[in-house]
């Protein structure tokens, strides 16, 4: 029997909200999938899309970006910039033949340890379902902007990522 695929996921967390949410999940001894490894940044606005590409090309099967809820950014509004970059990044990934749902944006406040844990586990399952990342191998690389949009809409409920 083939063994269950265990994805490797890199998580970029903001120092003020989601990293603390991860801390809280720990303090509360919540259990979640062990496949995510976190990198602490001061703000989700620090996320340079190349970090995501580096992670995916370096062996990660998925990348989770977490930040403060819209309107609650420690740096006033930088998470909106993260959101903008995230949406762009998805299009870039599609262009590269990578499923856009391999990156996920999650808002988690410092109080939302449970949400952090649940989202992490859910994301691991999503990536598990997608299978290992075959970087750049896909044949059906979308060509037109419409294709890209369609692929995004099919794959990711963007509204959910925003809310």
């Amino acid at each position: 029997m083939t063994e269950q695929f265990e994805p490797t996921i890199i998580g970029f967390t903001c120092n003020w909200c989601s990293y603390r949410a991860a801390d809280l999940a720990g303090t509360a001894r919540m259990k979640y999938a062990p496949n995510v490894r976190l990198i602490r940044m001061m703000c989700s606005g620090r996320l340079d899309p190349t970090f995501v590409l580096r992670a995916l090309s370096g062996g990660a099967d998925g990348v989770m970006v977490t930040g403060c809820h819209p309107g609650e950014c420690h740096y006033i509004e930088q998470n909106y910039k993260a959101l903008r970059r995230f949406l762009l990044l998805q299009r870039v990934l599609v262009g590269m033949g990578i499923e856009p749902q391999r990156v996920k944006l999650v808002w988690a406040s410092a109080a939302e340890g449970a949400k952090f844990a649940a989202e992490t586990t859910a994301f691991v399952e999503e990536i598990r379902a997608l299978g290992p990342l075959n970087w750049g191998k896909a044949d059906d690389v979308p060509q037109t902007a419409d294709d890209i949009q369609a692929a995004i809409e099919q794959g990711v409920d963007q509204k959910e990522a925003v809310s």
Partner: protein
Amino acid sequence: MTERVGVYVCHCGSNIAGTVDVVDVANWAEEKLAHLGVVVAREYKFMCSSLGQELIEKDIKELGLTRVVVAACSPHLHEKTFRTAAKNAGLNPYLVELASIREQVSWVHTDKAVATAKAKAVISGAVSRVIRNEALDELKVPINPNTMVVGGGIAGIQSALEIANAGFHVYLVEREPSIGGHMAQFDKTFPTLDCSACILTPRMVEAGTHPNITLLTWSEVVNVAGYVGNFHVTVKKKARFVNEELCTGCGICEEKCPKKVIDDVFEAGLGYRKAVYTPFAQAVPKFPVMDKENCTYFQKGTCKACEKFCPTGAIDFTQEDQLLHIDVGNIILATGYDLFDARQVSNYGYGRLPNVFTSIEFERLSNAAGPTNGTIVMRDGKSTPKSVGIIHCVGSRDKNFNNYCSVICCMQGLKFAHLVHERTGATVYNFYIDMRTAYKAYDEFYQRVLEEGTLFVRGKVAEVTDAARYSNEKGKLIIQVEDTLAGKQRRIPVDMVILSAGLQPRYDAKDVGKLFGISCSTDGWFTEKHPKLDPVATMTEGIYIAGCAQGPKDIPSSVAQGAAASARVLDKILQKEVALEPVRASIDKDSCSGCRICNGLCPFNAISFIEDDHVSDINPALCQGCGTCVAACPAGAISGTGFSDEQIMAQIDGLLMKNLEPEIA
């Protein structure tokens, strides 16, 4: 040069060691991470203990470590501890990294093999990163000992007085013509029923006459630049059209002014004022202001009655708004709250049914200095109500309006019940969802009101209507409610309804927050640095908050916060200088193309454009280190100390290290 890295794996008792094979991890690190420069890896029962710290300090000195990774708890807990230890041993504190293997590994996973492998990955990431860390120095900046307090309500007054009494100068800025805030409008204060003016006025006078306080009323902050210790604030002092040097506050101008207008602010629309006015008799300062919109001279070009009668020639129609530039070291925001607009709850009929009043209207109605001299009458101005219904939670605890509890409304409702009972003998009903009378002597007041015979109905009122269904309802306001304790719908006819409206953030709180560089919660209140342990500081150093600007609260709590904020400010002033975290962005001027993309990204206005050199520049003292500009720079000219691209990329690679056995992950 190759770094010499020490890795220290903490057992945290059994907290980590119970789930992670710490011995294996340490051995593995020493062997498999040697190529990154790991020269020693140790495990120890409690790394944060003094013995654990000494272990690290000893290695730094004896083995000549140039980098340290401590695999233990979250950096939010002990980063400072280990950095201090490194500093004691002569190593720059920013060359220490924490790998969180407790909160992120041992506490959240159960399989020991999997947890051990993940711990290794986390440590690999930290080691890869730490060898790219740079030695950093804290930024030290001197503190300007002057303080600005924005908002002259009771919280702001308290803050200003505390700091002024300690011997430092305060600028107290107030938007309205007088300080005093909402408290000046109230008649009595719960639970002791002290006369509000009697306890407030002496404080107002003290603030108005204090040699260390510069009072700037009828003024607003329009710009804030600078950073902790060195804020440059621009205050717009609106034209009063009254020369404060000459005015004696005699009140003749107000008496002679022929233009009477409804006073929507202080009298909550129930009373009148003149076009030139002081909002109330005990106003501080005593100088009136002229309301240009309503002044006959300004509107029609003739009148000048005030000028004619002023005995000191203080009226000055030529006055203009002034911009004052004030440097301060710290700022306290005590900007208060707005009352919830009860018209939004259209089923309560406020604005449609004349005898529905809001809490602030009732305050003015019951105030001896108010429009009816304290006589509680209905909207017709003469009839005394025989029955009064007081509705709690208007606009609060309601997802249709404001989600939160406004804290003061229960006690306010009880106070109203007492006053109505005492002054009119009317039958009083209080409609509440939950009676919240926590804090000293509050519940006793509830007992007292019960004893006086106020009738309590547990139920959120469904509607107030004038559509009579039965003959006894004709001409009355009918309060329809489920008496939840009786389990029955009731219709209670009354003469007068008082809505105990909730508090909400100032309509411009978001803009004010932006101006001062602090954030608001989803409800719109200013966000404190820590909800329990740092309630008056904000995430922006040097900016403090006090009173209702931070969230709904009563007078005692507002005063306490005002005092607390000044204690924090005094602490800063007395330190004379402040150290800033060196996590900052900087621009390599040679690489900068002058595209200005970063200019608009910074919410702290730390990035400016130098026209002459055609490059952007970051003020390190203003920069908060979020890194957004670093990520955005198309030329890669911006680097972030402490969170550089190299560090993060290295950490990514480290985290993705293979052959960790088992391959979870």
